């Protein structure tokens, strides 16, 4: 049992410090690619046209009028 706040992942702890840094630096690219895929799925479903449709209409209740 590990203490709270401490990693219990042996693989992670046994990694050389140099490699750990490498993993952290790859993280932004993984995150960006994941969200890019999500955005592409949205485009595939036709969401941009729905967003455009909504954004070109004044939503009076959304701005506190009516």
């Amino acid at each position, binding site marked *: 049992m590990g203490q709270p706040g401490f990693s219990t992942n042996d693989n992670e702890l046994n990694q050389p410090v140099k490699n750990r840094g490498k993993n952290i630096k790859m993280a932004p690219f993984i995150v960006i690619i994941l969200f890019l895929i999500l955005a592409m799925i949205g485009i595939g479903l036709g969401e941009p046209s729905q967003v*455009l449709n909504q954004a070109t209409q004044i939503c009076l209740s959304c701005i506190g*009028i009516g």
Partner: protein
Amino acid sequence: MDLLRKWVQGLFFFMTNGYWNFPVTRSIYKGPLKVVCSPGLNCYSCPASTTYCPIGALQQLFAGIRISIETGQFFMGFYVIGTMGILGGFVGRMICGWACPFGLFQELLHKIPSPKFGIWPLLRYMKYILLVFMVILLPLFAIDEFGSGSTWFCKYFCPAGTLEAGIPMLLLQPALQANLGWLFLLKLSILIFFIIWAVLASRPFCRTACPLGAFYALFSKVKLIKVSLDHKKCTHCGACHDVCPMGVHFNESPDDMECISCLSCSKVCKQNAINLGIRGLSIANQYKKPKVKPI
């Protein structure tokens, strides 16, 4: 760098609010650019707005999710969340410091001479509560008899919407004044509250109530472009504490979720320990040693 940031803030203000024909049309921009995401909080019902607000669009999609499923369209907000995530993955809350019109507005308000106060640190968590409840859960699950939700954050809270859209639309279309009620008074009160607070404290809305800032804050550890601390150079002198507009103690928490990468700390760091970098590669370092004239 501070001057560059001001220019970038101005540029984004005009890029996201570039429709200046509204006094003639007395309405909002309805062109194809509205499919582009505004990186900062910028109401798309603002007459000058040329882009969509991700927080507003997300709520609209969540509010209509049942109807879209029933009609076989499956609009789940992937496009909006994906776009927000890409922006977050690249720069995170740097957007708050460099590209948000409402952030710029608060910065300008804070320049008004007055006694200045700090903000109770625990209030920072309020924006995550607002993100989860008013932007995600309530639009998804608080539905009317037709199965349609509501844009809770925009409708009941967003002071940016009142400032950028509510008030201008009332001026452009005076007939709308007949529809005014308690809802507008509530939103106007919230706006006035944040305006006064922004004069007295630095960026109170960003620090306590902005759901978009809360979303971008989730990327603080994994964003591509970030301010980093050179621990070997840092002497923990604390010079970075007093200048941070977000109340971050940068030398103690370089990955702080509140950091908006404004580089105020880098400017005062005499050890050159604070740098803006891409994947750890420094691209900006601001402190310049004063030149000493030979006697």
